[in-house]
């Protein structure tokens, strides 16, 4: 059995540090502890990869297209505004 040091992170703590780690907001010491934990823990390494994937997939959402009717309405809104300007 591996000897657990008081400074060692457990998985349940590590998952709470993922966002801080990705945001670069952990202290140097906290980052090193986190990385040391990852080095010995394939599950938390997988978890971190999944959080990265979650961010990546969410970032791939594209706005839905406007309907032709909405395009017309906004063109109309713009023209009305322009004519008020003059």
């Amino acid at each position, binding site marked *: 059995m591996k000897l657990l040091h008081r400074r060692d992170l457990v*998985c*349940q703590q590590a998952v709470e540090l993922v966002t801080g780690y990705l945001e670069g907001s952990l202290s140097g010491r906290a980052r090193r502890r986190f990385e040391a934990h990852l080095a010995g823990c394939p599950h938390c390494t997988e978890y971190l990869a999944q959080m990265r*994937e979650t961010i990546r997939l969410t970032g791939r959402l594209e706005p839905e297209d*406007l309907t032709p009717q909405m395009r017309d309405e906004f063109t109309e809104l713009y023209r009305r505004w322009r004519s008020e300007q003059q």
Partner: protein
Amino acid sequence: MDPDSELLLRLRSGDERAFVSLVERYHEPMLRLAASFVPSAVAEEVVQDTWLAVLRGLDSFEGRSSLKTWLFRILVNRARSTGSKEQRSVPVADPEPAVDPSRFGGDGGWADPPEHWIEAAESRMEAGKLADRIRAWLGELPARQREVVLLRDVEGMTSEEVCAVLALSEGNQRVLLHRGRSRLRQLFEDEFREVR
């Protein structure tokens, strides 16, 4: 030059297609964000008002923030003054673990480790069959988490920009982002666990 700065130049020179392009790009994201603050029937109105305010404010926009940040700030201010939904969300201070505590053993290590889903999600995304699910999941997040995730991860804003748009401290922004992303990760895992 980034696409928004180019649009801004065209807008100021009176190009109506530039305005329609801007609406194409931001109308739906703005609706989603507005619906987090006000009932969806009102959200449409708030976004319409925002577009008019954008046109009126074009000349005074100084470009100290990005065009995108400016748009969303106008939107959020309008949505807030229109009136918030009651009981919008859990206070930031309430604890909310990233992972269900029952998945860890007494020693704090994984008892029920994360299931693999990355490859399955990638191929379903490629097939165009995941985006709608992700949109639905975003809608299920608590309002304040959703607002942060929409701006950070869908719109790609920096944390500074999100703090400015939502009037959040850096720390609260990070807590909300952490909870929102953690919930989404769990929803991905649940989705692909069912497939097996």
